[in-house]
């Protein structure tokens, strides 16, 4: 096997913190590679995937509804004074729909999901890790990665775009209520104006964004949970790290995707 000499103390290449960060990045990269390797290999855990879609998608609806509705109303109320200065309040539906579809709905959905779903995945898998449930799956000759990680990451990747459209719809409803009260615009007229300026590129870019955000939330939550250290403290840290890291990555990805979309536009 290996040699029999062992250093008396641990040695670091750069420093303990930096070595840990680079090791974490490398392990994260390997975790993502493993996901892409296992996602195409049979057997597929179909029932667990459907259960995760239900947990991640359906159970997020109340929170998403409330947040989307408030976002629509607040953004309409805050935009009105600026537009009314130029006598352009009739542009409100177009402005709101473009802002909601291009930026607000994807970002609000992703941030809410990062908090709710990401922390849930991190805590659940972290708890399974520290109570040896993941080890138990492994020693019983089953593949915990396929059952726990692949299903959750696929579910978040598919559900976040669906939730984004729902958020956009609810935000537009909130906006319509406010506009209807102040400008007496009818629902049909509001919707006509709202969709007047929307292009396919807006829809495609938002779907692309939310696919990336969904994947990020799922993979970060699973990675942090799967690698939770021993003890209940590790579970809390995994949940916390899942939220913080996925939110940070979502903002970085937002910048990159917006740049790419503007380049195409």
């Amino acid at each position, binding site marked *: 096997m290996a040699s029999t000499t062992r250093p008396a103390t641990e040695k670091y290449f750069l420093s303990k913190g930096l070595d840990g960060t680079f090791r974490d990045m490398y392990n994260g990269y390997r975790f993502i590679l493993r996901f892409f390797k296992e996602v195409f290999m049979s057997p597929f855990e179909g029932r667990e995937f459907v259960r995760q879609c239900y947990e991640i998608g359906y159970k997020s609806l109340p929170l998403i509804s409330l947040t989307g509705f408030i976002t629509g109303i607040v953004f309409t109320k805050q935009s009105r004074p600026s537009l009314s200065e130029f006598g352009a309040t009739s542009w409100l539906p177009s402005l709101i729909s473009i802002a909601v579809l291009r930026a607000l709905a994807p970002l609000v959905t992703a941030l809410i999901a990062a908090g709710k779903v990401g922390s849930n995945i991190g805590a659940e898998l972290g*708890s399974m890790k520290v109570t040896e449930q993941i080890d138990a799956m492994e020693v*019983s000759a089953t593949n915990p990665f396929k059952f726990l990680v692949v299903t959750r990451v696929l579910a978040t990747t598919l559900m976040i775009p669906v939730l984004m459209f729902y958020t956009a719809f609810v935000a537009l409803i909130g906006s319509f209520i406010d506009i209807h009260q102040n400008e007496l615009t009818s629902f049909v007229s509001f919707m006509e104006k709202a969709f007047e300026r929307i292009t396919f590129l807006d829809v495609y870019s938002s779907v692309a964004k939310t696919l990336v955000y969904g994947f990020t939330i799922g993979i970060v939550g699973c990675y942090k949970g799967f690698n939770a250290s021993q003890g209940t403290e590790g579970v809390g840290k995994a949940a916390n790290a899942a939220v913080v890291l996925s939110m940070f990555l979502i903002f970085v990805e937002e910048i990159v995707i917006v740049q790419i979309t503007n380049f195409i536009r």
Partner: protein
Amino acid sequence: MINREASPIDRNTKVISIRGLEKSFGTMDVLKGIDLDVYKGENVVVLGRSGTGKSVLIKIISGLLKPDYGTVNVLGNEVDLLSDKDLQALRLKIGFSFQNGALYDSMTVRGNLEFPLKRNFRNLNRKQINEAVEEVLEGVGLLQAIDQMPSGLSGGQRKRIGIARTLILRPEIMLYDEPTAGLDPITSIEINNLINQVQQKYHTSSIIITHDLTCAKATGDRVAMMLDGTFLHQGTFDEVFGSDDPAVKAFYEYNFIQ
């Protein structure tokens, strides 16, 4: 109370053979040169204080951890040299009973037992799966808990279900991690009896990790006493505890005075 019949041990067939095993975590050396043989049909108890690396030993045997040095041969396979596929095949022959049962919280008892069965034997129909689940649950005396969630079970019941979940795959080797830790004396005796029943009914060879001398005496054909990452003594219970070694005496007196 201790129900123990002599089980036939095949002294010509080693199911586990460990030589010069070393394992460290960071700067902490946990295992420092372990040699151990387990024969077919034999129950070997690994005794020692908490934190001496007993659990690390069985995690290496099951391939959950990699050794730093030494060889670990299980059923003719060098565990750390196996491919993922071969390791999966070997794990079908090894049952691992975790300290707290490690039952899957999100599934019922039935779901827990079906989980490894469905994924390893995909050609089984519903009737065969139900029969297998009911048979092992009956074996551990918990058929009535079949539709309960793990959160509704006591510590002893969780351990029994954990053992049933490993037995459903018909393992040749059983690894028990602290099977009586945290249990009352009566439940501990029940678990000890269950370990002996498993050995007799399924003809398994076992390693039982414990610091409970009653468990060691009740279940072990042979005892290996671990201290500071090495085996201090190996032999029958009476041979090991007949020793004048102060460390062994202190361990014995502490357990039985308690």
